[in-house]
């Protein structure tokens, strides 16, 4: 079936839904690199006109990646909830956009609809939404998860403390960890990207995080962001694994490039559940995604990078994750060229993740070869906080000295709390109060580091 739009007497034809979606996507370098982007600005809008008229039900028939050859497509089709889809089954993509922004589309209505939506429907509607639409609609959706604390509650903003070190030196990691805890960060997870990605090193880091967490009774969870097969092996060796991490993408071939399959992810989740380490919940998975991941593995099947990204969320939601975040600016300027593209992609990823039912967070970040700087990150972190993002990632001073890119800083989290009135998870906030890190107005005390003496004093 072909799709078409006529603008000022000129006919624009699109061969299939995959092409309509790609041509309708906002301009970004990755789609230009892949050769799937609109040829010019008018063709892009023509594609949006055509897309607005497409019935949502068409996405159940016209699949961008064949069912027979891709297990992500099979997951999407086989788990589609027709009953949940029924309320919007008669709508076009354009009508669906208006419905999402309408007053009757409240938190409950959207949550009930979510299992009936496929990633292609969600990607499609996002392409008809301005940035403010992506924020306003996402803001309605709350996705609550729990492990040792509760993430996703209204008025709360979780934070991942990321204390990376170029050689995994435990004392260097401890310095960054303390800095973050004393700045009130780390309720979503204390998560290390290891420089040396092997099992023995992962266990050393997990043991260190466990010692700190239990000594100070911190109601949070830890994670060493290594491959799932390493996490399974660490669990088998008795290591204290709270969350199991994996990078995922939206096609079977791209996931093969990451060395994972749906079966392997299920095995990893079962292994983590067997430890029964959560106290207020048992959501044990942590996924990272990012636009461009499928293209960089040459496994995008002609899809635009944003549609491929939302298909990764279909993978994520099959495993009830505790946390999911897009690494939006990390993959590089060949996918998202500048601050404008990174900001738009961050808002798309957050909205689409939430609409798919995920506890969506973001690594608000950029690399030094992108046309972006910390001002762009300030904008995105504030927009995402207004949009109700579940959590953001923070590193000392915004400078990750292991991965050599810039994310948000611990201090940025304080700025978001004071600017928007958002707070840490309730269990973690109570811990901060118990450690006398907050003043009477809930702000982080300026002399908080004087607690450092108490905290790093030798045991016993």
């Amino acid at each position, binding site marked *: 079936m072909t799709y078409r739009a006529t603008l000022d007497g000129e006919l624009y034809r699109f061969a299939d839904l995959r092409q309509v979606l790609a041509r309708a996507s906002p301009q970004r370098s990755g789609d230009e690199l892949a050769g799937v982007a609109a040829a010019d600005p008018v063709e892009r809008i023509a594609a949006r006109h055509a897309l607005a008229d497409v019935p949502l039900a068409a996405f159940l028939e016209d699949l961008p990646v064949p069912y027979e050859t891709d297990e992500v497509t099979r997951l999407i089709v086989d788990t589609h909830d027709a009953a949940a889809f029924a309320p919007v089954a008669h709508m076009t993509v354009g009508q669906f956009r208006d419905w999402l922004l309408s007053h009757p589309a409240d938190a409950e209505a959207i949550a009930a609809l979510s299992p009936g939506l496929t990633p292609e429907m969600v990607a499609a509607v996002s392409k008809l939404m301005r940035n403010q639409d992506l924020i306003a609609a996402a803001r309605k959706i709350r996705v609550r998860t729990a492990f040792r604390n509760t993430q996703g509650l209204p008025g709360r903003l979780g934070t991942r403390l990321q204390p990376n070190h170029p050689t995994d030196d435990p004392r260097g990691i401890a*310095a*960054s960890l303390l800095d973050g805890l004393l700045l009130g960060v780390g309720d979503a997870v204390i998560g290390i990207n290891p420089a*040396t990605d092997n099992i023995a090193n992962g266990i050393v880091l997990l043991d260190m995080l466990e010692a700190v967490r239990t000594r100070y009774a911190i109601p949070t969870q830890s994670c060493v962001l290594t491959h799932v097969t390493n996490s399974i092996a660490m669990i088998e060796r008795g290591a204290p694994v709270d969350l199991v991490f994996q990078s995922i993408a939206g096609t079977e071939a791209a996931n093969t490039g990451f060395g994972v399959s749906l079966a392997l992810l299920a095995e990893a989740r079962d292994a983590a559940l067997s430890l029964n380490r959560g106290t207020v919940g048992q959501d044990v998975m942590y996924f990272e995604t990012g636009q461009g991941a499928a293209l960089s593995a040459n496994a995008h099947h002609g899809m635009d990078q944003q549609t491929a990204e939302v298909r990764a969320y279909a993978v994520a939601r099959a495993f009830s994750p505790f946390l999911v975040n897009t690494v939006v600016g990390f993959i*590089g300027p060949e996918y998202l060229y500048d601050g404008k593209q990174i900001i738009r992609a961050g808002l798309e990823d957050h909205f689409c993740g939430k609409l798919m039912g995920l506890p969506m967070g973001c690594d608000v970040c950029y690399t*030094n070869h992108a046309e972006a700087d910390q001002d762009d990150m300030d904008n995105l972190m504030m927009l995402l906080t207004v949009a109700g993002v579940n959590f953001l990632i923070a*590193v000392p*001073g915004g*400078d990750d000295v292991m991965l050599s890119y810039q994310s948000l800083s611990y201090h940025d989290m304080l700025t978001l709390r004071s600017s928007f009135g958002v707070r840490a998870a309730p269990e973690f906030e109570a811990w901060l109060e118990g450690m006398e890190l907050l003043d009477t107005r809930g702000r982080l005390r300026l*002399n908080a580091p004087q607690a450092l003496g108490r905290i790093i004093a030798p045991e016993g």
Partner: protein
Amino acid sequence: MTKSPPDSAHDPLIDPSTETDPWAPLRGLTRARVGQPRAGDTVAGGEVLAFQLAHARARRAVMAPLRQEALRLDGAVLSVRSQAADRATFIRRPDLGRRLSADSAACLTRGSYDVAFVIADGLSALAAERQAPPLLAACHALLPGWRIAPVVVAHNARVALGDDIAHRLGAGCVVMMIGERPGLSVSDSLSLYMTWDPRPGRLDSERNCISNIHDQGGLSTGAAAAKLAGLLAGARRIGRSGIMLKDETPATLDGLASP
């Protein structure tokens, strides 16, 4: 600015020079920006300027062209360019950075060599200019008996450009010495990518990488050359490179952000 509680009248974070600064001993443990002085919820202005200077240096390193005269190379040198005509195109189009320009392809004549060394700008010409010449000299010293091709200097080059270069030169192996994406603390870090039997279409999994070569706490050029010599000997023994060939201390490969 946030009103300080009474007990912070002498706040070590407002005046980090004070003897009571609890962060002083911890700053030596990591290059991370820990214990920054605060202004209310954010950091003091000096920290903002320091960050901006580091970013400006990194941006300059990304955009700078590779100056062949700065390499001070002796002997025959071949200069080639990719199909990315300028730095802006190079950053947007990694595919063009992996292909030789027509002129450059024509100037490479076939010989018979064991190994070809390519000095490539990648994402930091500064890294190539500073680390590649001493590294090349150290490699030569460790490879007696190897027939080494004339050194190639490659502009606007990605890693895979080396495959085509070495294939055209008739070299049995290529070593790309390529500038890494600059970080805020180090903007002149170099990586080595070694590929056995190079030809267009080789996969990244068929290469071995030695990264983080710089003189600010990274791998020294001498140590990197020794690692490379070990890898070359291993590759010659098994007739291939890549994931089948193990370095005793594996380099960390950053799959998503390779240059």
